[in-house]
């Protein structure tokens, strides 16, 4: 082998190694997102439910032909449950589409909860009487089936009577998970994106970077409004470059032709 190609190969290998080193960084930051993405397309069992008004139904019948947003809670929770439901309520009000595009179900996983507890919880967050919100309890085994299907865990602490559990919101469509959100309320933009997806918009389920130096079109998940950004100029650049290259090439050759 001659020295030039060898040097080129070495340079290529070094470039590859140098570029590969930071490549793992973005993937490592997405642990939570991966846990959520594992739930996508999981089938959720169609369990019987008892609603706050005393009626009984099944999960599939409650959803009907629309997607269903499911949040897990229990009435005596001194932690995340009520803030989680309030968070869902506020985001749903902001984004809209409730009733027309999807319904919400708050499902208790505490077999000590009663129909009266469900009504109390609904009243506490101001949605009692809303036809598009449902609060439900179910048999212990039935809840366990649903929880098992979506990796939702809960453990009762005998000392306090409180449950140790994560905060989980599921978007179901035709009995399958289309999106899941794990974690405490706070970063509500992702939740709003989830609701946009339930309204029929395509939102990638993987996490996309938030702070981009050069955006194309900015999207406000609160209002659904879009705003053009500077990155859009990069989409015009190829056409301008092509026209410029053609003009320069033909002008240069034209001079040669005339000179000849």
């Amino acid at each position, binding site marked *: 082998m001659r020295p030039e190609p060898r040097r080129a190969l070495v340079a290529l290998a070094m470039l590859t190694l140098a570029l590969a080193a930071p*490549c793992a960084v973005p993937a490592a930051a997405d642990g939570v997102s991966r846990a959520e993405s594992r739930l996508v397309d999981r089938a959720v069992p169609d369990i019987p439910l008892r609603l706050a008004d005393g009626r009984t139904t099944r999960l599939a019948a409650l959803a009907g032909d629309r997607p269903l947003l499911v949040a897990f809670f229990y009435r005596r929770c001194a932690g995340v449950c009520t803030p989680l439901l309030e968070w869902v309520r506020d985001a749903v009000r902001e984004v809209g589409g409730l009733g027309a595009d999807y319904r919400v179900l708050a499902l208790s996983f505490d077999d000590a909860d009663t129909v009266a507890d469900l009504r109390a919880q609904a009243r506490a967050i101001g949605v009692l009487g809303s036809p598009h919100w449902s609060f439900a309890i179910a048999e212990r085994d039935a809840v366990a089936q649903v929880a098992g299907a979506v990796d939702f865990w809960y453990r009762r602490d005998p000392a306090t009577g409180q449950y140790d559990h994560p905060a989980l919101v599921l978007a179901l469509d035709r009995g399958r998970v289309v999106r899941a959100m794990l974690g405490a309320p706070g970063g509500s933009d992702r939740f709003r994106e989830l609701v946009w997806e339930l309204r029929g918009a*395509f939102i990638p389920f993987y996490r996309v970077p938030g*702070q981009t130096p050069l955006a194309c079109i900015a999207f406000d998940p609160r209002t659904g409004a*879009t705003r053009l950004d500077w990155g859009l100029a990069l989409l015009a650049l190829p056409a301008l470059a092509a026209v410029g290259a053609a003009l320069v090439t033909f002008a240069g050759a034209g001079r040669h032709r005339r000179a000849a």
Partner: protein
Amino acid sequence: MRAVKSQTLYWMAITFVLFPVLILLGIYMRSVQAGALPALEGWFYPMMTLHGVGMVGVWYVAAVACAANVLAKYAAPSPAIGRLAIAGTVVGVLLLLACVFLGRFAAGWYFLYPLPFKGEWPAWSAVVFLVSLTVLGATWLVWSLDLLRAIAARYSLGQALGWHYLAGRSDPVLPPAVLIITVSLIASVAALVAGVIMLVLFYLELATGAPNDALLMKNLIFFFGHTLVNLALYLGVALAYEVLPEYAGRPWKTNKVVVISWNAVLAIVLVAYFHHLYMDVVQPGVLLYIGQVASYASAIPAAVVTIFGALLLVYRARMRWNLASILFFLGLAGWAIGGVGAVIDSTISANVRLHNTLWVPAHFHTYMVAGLVFLVVAYFYHVCQEAAAAPERTGYQKLLATLMVLGAYGFFLMFYLSGAYSVPRRFAAYPAELAHGAIYSGIAAAFAALFLLGFVLYLVETGKRWRRALAHAS
């Protein structure tokens, strides 16, 4: 006997080796989807990536190589740049093979951001994939610019785009193939620059960790990929304009309609790719409507004018039918048929239903295989036969053309039926509720094998002529 440029013959050899291998990968994928190869299921996505990038790349360079050979009649492309294009393509293909077979890189031929960084494959394989695209893109950009330079050495920009015909003048005479090649090369530069910008953004993220905007990257990827595929087709059509008149015994001249239509293509092809972003809520609605209108509009100047022109050319002509003219005619038909599927898919209300189904591979396989592949292999046979002047076996040629047509259209039909029955694309294995997808896949694999058989017979017929042509190559 007409001598062929040796570089054209080398491009043929590359195509003749790679295409059957890539067909086998396609048959493998449909067999996995049919449930016939469960032990090899793990390779589905790496092979999907190789099949997609490989097919697009092979047929793009094959079409450009044919265009360069056509141009050589009227202008003088640089032989050195031609050699660089071959060398760069070989290096790019080797890098692609390395990242797929050694690194199991499997982000698909769209490699939509941020997927290359999110998969289970090692980081180095994503980098090698990007380096492979860089080598290929940079080489092809230089090649395109050199071919433009060659055209510019004979024509002014206005002449090469046929604008003097609009003023009622026909001097200098501009062959329609040169007009189409000029339009395609200018648009190719735009597509390849879009690819360069996209790759630079990928590298910047790798080097600095600063994330990119997913929508910007998706726009750039489709500006690059979709436009390049379209242009490969247009170059294939240019071959038909150049060669089909020889078999019809009539000229196919440039006129005002041809000039207007192909100049319109130059603008339309650069915005048609927006139809790939219908599902992205953030993409402004006006761009989506531009995508739909441009997709419809691109069918009128290019396809309607060309198909109408081809029919007039052949109608009541003393047509000399051989393998080349048959495949040219079939190629134009396949382009039109695939175009109908594409127009349906580019309709927003239909795309909502069809976008993630096998309808999408259905239409692009139709215009790639029954359109571009037929046009290019027709040209390959034509130049080899011109050089070899060998006696032609009409029955054998009709048989192999029949096998290729039956195999191809049977294969497409399974995709179309699957798409119409909501079978999703990019599934390696179908769940129970999509079991009908597995049945279509099995039948499709059989049809693809039939097409491969036809192509092997084509290779036998053309290969003999290729060897003689190589002996007399210039």
